[in-house]
């Protein structure tokens, strides 16, 4: 069951102290909002305001989602050919994606034969990374695919610095009409390229 919708009051962008209320959707989180705000306190002076994130901030966010410090092992949040930490699964399960899901409904736990990661800047103010998984011909049986899950080496505890291998990052499903079910063609490779994009709204 989806969580109840909630509302958030935040400063309106360029609103000189005006507030606006937005509602977190009950379902339908196919886009993420991110914003920054400040609260300034100085004696009797106190206000809240929205900022504008600049290009450095945007690049940092997209980098931090997929990779980490050179000294860290492993280095990436999504790895090239290291299926211990990150992978993509296809699955047979149905049902809408819930905010709290941490696995597919009915995963086919055959990991890809290879994965790769690239980062790019396809246009001004747009950054993305691609996580591509390839199964060789015949690696998967002729299953009917109803769901796809993206799994990474993620920080999933708000107060803990320890990442978790193979935590589900995102899912898409036929139930949410995100794609039409298809049957694996065992005579051809299967490639799934996941692109996570960040831009200014």
């Amino acid at each position: 069951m989806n969580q109840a919708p909630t509302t958030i009051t935040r400063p309106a962008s360029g609103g000189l102290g005006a507030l606006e209320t937005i509602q977190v959707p009950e379902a339908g989180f196919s886009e993420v909002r991110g914003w920054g705000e400040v609260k300034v306190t100085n004696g009797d002076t106190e206000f809240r305001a929205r900022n504008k994130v600049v290009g450095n901030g945007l690049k940092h966010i997209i980098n931090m989602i997929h990779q980490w410090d050179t000294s860290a092992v492993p280095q990436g949040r999504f790895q090239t050919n290291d299926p211990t930490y990150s992978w993509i699964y296809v699955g047979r399960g149905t049902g809408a994606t819930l905010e709290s899901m941490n696995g597919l409904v009915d995963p086919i736990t055959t990991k890809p034969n290879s994965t790769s990661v690239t980062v790019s800047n396809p246009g001004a103010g747009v950054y993305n990374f691609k996580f591509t998984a390839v199964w060789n011909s015949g690696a998967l049986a002729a299953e009917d695919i109803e769901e796809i899950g993206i799994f990474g080496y993620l920080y999933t505890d708000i107060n803990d610095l320890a990442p978790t291998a193979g935590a589900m990052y995102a899912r898409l499903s036929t139930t949410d009409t995100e794609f039409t079910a298809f049957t694996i063609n065992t005579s051809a490779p299967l490639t799934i390229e996941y692109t996570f994009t960040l831009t200014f709204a």
Partner: protein
Amino acid sequence: MAFNEFLGCEQPAYTRPIAGGLGQVEEVYPASQGGGELRLWGEVEVRQGDEVLFTARNKIVSQGLLHAIIGITRNHATLGGASTYNPTARVFNINDLTRSWIYVGTGTGATTEGMTDLVTPVTTKPDATSTDQDSPVAGTYRLKFIATWNSGSLGAVAVEEIGVYGHLFTTIDSTASTNGRLFARLSTTDSEFTGFTVNTAAPLTIEYRVVATFA
């Protein structure tokens, strides 16, 4: 003529799958002046052999959102293995003013996407900084970076801009991070706040919050 030019948009459009649209696409236009709000989304392209089966939007789940907000704020240096981390090596730090800080400034002008510094920063760093993170409501995560200047640390400056600086990864596909890079700015020019003069008889506290939620 490109569609964005027809509409009078300065930026090129980015074409993405419509959520739940079974193959339909839509165009989005990144704001040319930086973003008061960020969008994040994911999309997949599925190919079988040389054939593209479909391109589709996903739904990011709670773990993905949480990872993003933590990734923004927390850096770690490995101290000897994958499971050992240095909790002080963060993107926004507690009382480590060589890595991260907030500046106020006297400069005007709109914030642009490519800005790397305030227009006229008052380069007096805060006396203290701290961080906190919470989940104020379900499905929403928040990072706080709080800077405090003691009474009198700043002069009676007429503040027109505020900048937040962190230890950031700012080069695409590079693991090298840099101290004190501008993460965000707000200005009176953009009508984000009304200029004010620092009261030197009281502490000045600026609490910066990054909030991530589902659009």
